[in-house]
């Protein structure tokens, strides 16, 4: 007997909804089976808290007096360059942007202590931020330079718009070379000295809806501590990525583009982060509720760490050279034990994504729903599914200097 979303939302309104986290659902399905779980449980909440580089904030600064056409000029927030290619006072600040004066990897490995992600954290924490802008001046927008302190609440719109969040599965990074390497998967010790992974595993949103049946455009979510929405597929969304017999991707697959009002969010769930030798980014808290509409959804949300495999990839060779080689697959249960076996060696396995924080997000979303303040939405458009044939492609390679490519 399938439920409808409207029935579930009515139960939310009347305080009768039965909601569990994806971690709790593993046991419910194990004990009651998918059919029993589908009858007993209405909503499963998921969560993840990890570095998500394709993140940023879209802001309207309001006009200065006299007016200034920052769009087409240059803008910086706390010395970090933003994007000024839209209307006069509409700017975007991305998580990985760095101040011009940051030495980057000039003295290797660089520290990247302050970038776009850190500015976003400062803004959401209601700390003041220095806006500096320069532009060319027009009759209607005569001002050419500007500097002012500002705080989040003095802006017009400020919405987090993240083109790629919530990766469905990801690589496990190892280093087969003879030297320590510094990557977006952390510091990796030589000769298989480390195996780093970055996923909330059984709590991860898209892992609990692996075919994107309930998550789609318009799904209401927990984002950065406030309410947000899925607005599109994320960049590199790849529904045709290889899957195991249960339909669970065995490597990076789907992604989400998400959006929400920064003024409702909190610095507990949006943190500037620095990856040694790599760059600056933003750690984002994301949580998605899944309505248990039928037995299939119940079975899918019952996925456990032992069911999810990820590919071990050499980040010293295959990855930078864009070779598809995978050494082997291991499960998140094995990874979370702290040691995995690779090529006959026992390799320490450590996370980069915080499981305790992912759990806290799932619990928080659970309490919002149980409290009646958060209703679920049906997607207005589906994300591309596996039958779309969509597969992430590499970049075009037509160097201008190659024979035949001249102007």
């Amino acid at each position, binding site marked *: 007997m399938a439920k409808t979303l409207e029935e579930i939302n009515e139960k939310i309104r009347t305080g009768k909804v039965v909601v569990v986290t994806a971690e709790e659902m593993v046991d419910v399905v194990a004990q009651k089976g998918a059919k029993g779980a589908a009858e007993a449980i209405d909503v499963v909440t998921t969560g993840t808290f990890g570095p998500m580089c394709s993140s940023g904030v879209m802001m309207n600064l309001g006009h200065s007096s006299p007016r200034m056409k920052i769009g087409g000029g240059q803008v910086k927030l706390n010395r970090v360059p933003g994007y000024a290619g839209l209307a006069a006072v509409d700017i975007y600040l991305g998580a990985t942007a760095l101040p011009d004066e940051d030495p980057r990897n000039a003295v290797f490995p660089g520290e990247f202590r302050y970038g776009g992600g850190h500015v976003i954290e400062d803004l959401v924490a209601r700390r003041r931020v220095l806006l500096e802008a320069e532009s060319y001046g027009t009759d209607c927008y005569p001002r050419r330079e500007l500097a002012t302190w500002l705080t989040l609440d003095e802006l017009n719109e400020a919405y987090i718009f993240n083109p790629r969040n919530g990766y469905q599965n990801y690589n496990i990074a190892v280093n087969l070379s003879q030297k320590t390497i510094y990557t977006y998967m*952390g510091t990796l010790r030589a000769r298989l000295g480390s195996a780093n992974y970055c996923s909330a595993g059984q709590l991860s949103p898209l892992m609990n809806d692996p075919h994107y049946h309930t998550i789609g455009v318009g799904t209401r979510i927990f984002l950065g501590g406030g309410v947000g929405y899925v607005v599109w597929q994320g960049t590199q969304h790849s529904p045709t990525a290889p899957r195991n017999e249960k339909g669970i991707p065995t490597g990076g697959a789907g992604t989400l583009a998400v959006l929400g009002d920064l003024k409702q969010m909190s610095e507990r769930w949006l943190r500037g982060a620095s990856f040694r030798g790599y760059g600056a980014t933003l*750690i984002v808290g994301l949580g998605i509720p899944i309505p248990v509409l039928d037995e299939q959804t119940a079975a899918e949300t019952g996925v456990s760490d032992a069911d999810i495999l990820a590919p071990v990839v050499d980040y010293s060779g295959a990855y930078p050279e864009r070779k598809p080689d995978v050494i082997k697959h291991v499960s998140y249960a094995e990874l979370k*034990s702290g040691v995995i076996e690779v090529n006959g060696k026992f390799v320490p396995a*450590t996370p*980069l994504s*915080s499981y305790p924080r992912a759990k806290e997000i799932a619990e928080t979303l659970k309490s919002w729903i149980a409290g009646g303040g958060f209703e679920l939405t049906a997607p207005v458009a589906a994300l591309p599914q596996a039958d779309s044939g969509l597969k992430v492609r590499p970049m075009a390679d037509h160097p201008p200097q190659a024979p035949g490519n001249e102007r």
Partner: protein
Amino acid sequence: MQVSHRIVLHFPPTATDQPVIFRLSRDYGLVFNILRASITPEEEGLMVLELSGEDSDYQRAIGYLSEMGVRIQPLVQDIRKNDEKCVDCGACVGVCPTEALVLERPSMRVIFDPEECVVCGECVPTCPVAAMELRF
């Protein structure tokens, strides 16, 4: 009285070829644990050592080291985990050589044990949210 001290030893180039640590054990009866050892570009030897034994033997051993031209400092640096900043991501655990930083299971929280820390400092630039602090 049994004592145990963590000290930082600076060996001048003249002393780097002497079996000094061996003598601390054989001639002074001390148990030694080498926590860290390196030769700097200026060819000064640096060692962080834990020495344990009878206090009287320890004092005589310190005298011997000084005679050998070894400069001795107590290990006063320490590392602190700022629990308000820490997000339990686990990045530090992967770089800690002594398991002073470990993951508690099944919660997956990061636990720091200062007793195991040898102040190598790797966790400080590794922590993505600057939660590891080096203090003097």
